[in-house]
């Protein structure tokens, strides 16, 4: 938007003021994370002190205890396996579907898949549990990953439609005339051209799987319990361990942090693409 007219210094001051306001706003939103990390670094005594202690000697004891007591490493591994499985499967199923919808403007199909995104999953959990049991899929990676598909496929489709629409149709037509089969053309042209979108979609799909709590709560068992369910059981039979909880929360949120900083541009584009018209 063009800026208003006026003396340069006035414009600079107003810009400064707005920047400060913006930073304060973000600061308020970030304060929860800040508090989480601080609490994770404090001892139990410091954490329960009244009034709260602001200057303290940090300790890594809480992080150590998270990994020591429980089989936290295995939970992280499980989350990783399920996350990657659901992302890969979601991409495998969703990318072709998104492409088809983008190319052929299949509105009805899009609606059908997007309705899945809207479904309240609670409504399916009891039947899923009973059905999965009969097929022996409880507490298996396959079962849990399959359930995540109901989130990842619609997500992939929703995010990738925009990216695929961006590819001019002539490129595909030209390749087709050159004798490239649809499938090859898809794999060797469309995907590389929308590489940024695919990456962003993959990351977001992985993150949503990683964050998922409800499905693991019901469908996972001791072998496949994922991190969100494990951290909830941190409320142990002893006192509430604020430091330990905060440390666990920090560790769990870590992938999100890392991914965001690495690929934020694509993520923003992907997230907003589905809702902004060209």
């Amino acid at each position, binding site marked *: *938007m*063009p*800026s208003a007219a006026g003396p340069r210094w006035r414009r600079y001051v107003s*810009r400064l003021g*707005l*920047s400060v306001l*913006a*930073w304060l706003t973000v600061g308020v*939103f970030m304060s*929860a*994370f800040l*508090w989480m990390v601080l609490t994770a670094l404090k001892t139990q005594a410091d954490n*329960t002190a009244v009034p709260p202690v602001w200057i303290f000697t940090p300790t890594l004891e809480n992080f150590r205890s998270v990994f020591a007591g429980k089989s936290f490493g295995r939970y992280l591994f499980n989350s990783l396996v399920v996350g990657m499985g659901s992302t890969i499967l979601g991409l495998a199923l*969703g990318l072709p*579907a998104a*492409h*088809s*919808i983008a*190319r*052929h*403007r*299949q*509105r009805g*199909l*899009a609606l059908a*898949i997007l*309705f899945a995104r*809207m479904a*309240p999953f*609670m*409504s*399916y959990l*009891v*039947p899923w549990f009973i*059905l999965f049991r009969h097929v022996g899929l409880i507490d298996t990676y396959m079962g849990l990953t*399959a359930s995540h*598909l*109901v989130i990842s496929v619609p997500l992939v489709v929703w995010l990738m*439609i*925009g990216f695929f629409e961006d590819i*001019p*149709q002539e490129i595909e*037509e030209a390749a087709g005339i050159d004798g490239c*089969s649809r499938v090859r053309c898809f794999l060797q042209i469309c995907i590389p051209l929308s590489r940024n979108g695919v990456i962003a979609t993959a990351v977001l799909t992985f993150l949503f799987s990683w*964050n998922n709590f*409800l499905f693991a709560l019901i469908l996972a068992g001791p072998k496949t319990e994922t991190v969100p369910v494990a951290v*909830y059981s941190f409320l142990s039979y002893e006192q509430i361990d604020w430091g330990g909880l*905060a440390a666990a*929360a920090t560790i*769990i*949120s870590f992938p999100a942090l890392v991914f*965001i900083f690495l690929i*934020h541009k694509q*993520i923003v584009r992907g*997230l*907003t693409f589905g*809702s*902004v*018209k*060209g």
Partner: protein
Amino acid sequence: MASHAELTARAPLVSGRPYKRKRDFQTRVLFPAPALFAIFLLLLFPTVYNVYMSFFNWYIANPPEFVGLGNYLQMFLRDERFWGSIGRTAYLTGITIPAEVILGTAIALLFGQRVMGGRVLRVLFILPMVATPVAMALVWTMILTPTGGILNHLLEQIGLAPSLWMTHPRTAIPSIALVDIWQWTPMITLIVLAGLESLPEEPFEAALIDGASPLQVFFKITLPLLRPSLAVAMMFRTIDSLKTFDLIYVMTQGGPGTSSETLNVYVYQKGFNYLHLGYSSALALVLLGLVFGTSLVLSHFRERSWRY
């Protein structure tokens, strides 16, 4: 970027050539088929099963007993807790969505003013929505603890009255709403920002020349132009808000009493805690109907058609 209209205008028409038709079949049908099949499998069978089970009274200690529409009659006519949960669902969604939209848009406008370090701000601002909800709900539970929590302590320091947050029926849902708003306002902001950045310059320049005030510019030009993006964002957020579970389960389990028990949580309690399976299937179907009904209503209100 080229608009969709331009692209399709330039694309060659689908002709009757057999080779092309075969290739089209591949992409039109075969490409989406696996995805459709997977979703069909995962969602349709359970719905049918739910419908079937909802006609039985199956409490775990007894064998299932056919009651026809008995569960539904009980639900609509005698179950106060059910109606309460509908009201609470509406209440929670009713405070979070407007708050997120207004706050999100305001912040987007702020960020859009070519703020210094704007890029870093946007990256940081994504964090609340991608952090694990369960973990952050636990963190917020600690922050909002009435005795010993940091927020009450800060409120007292600045002279405001501390609140009982999640431990009092009147403030239970607002506490959950607070965390939900914290988590999802960034999404609205990002969507609006992207929308703002793709707006054409001409209307604004014209307005400036005409001497319009910033407020007039906002309400008469910016807002109407943003309407489509906002509408989609609002729709998705509303549907997701009806399905809120993680936050409520971790922070209050629907308590104190049932003051924060939405329909979603009630389905969980009946099905997985009390093991009243037939009844919970009936509740689950009502929840399904509520969500779909809402999405139909909302998409009807949207002016422009879906981008699809």
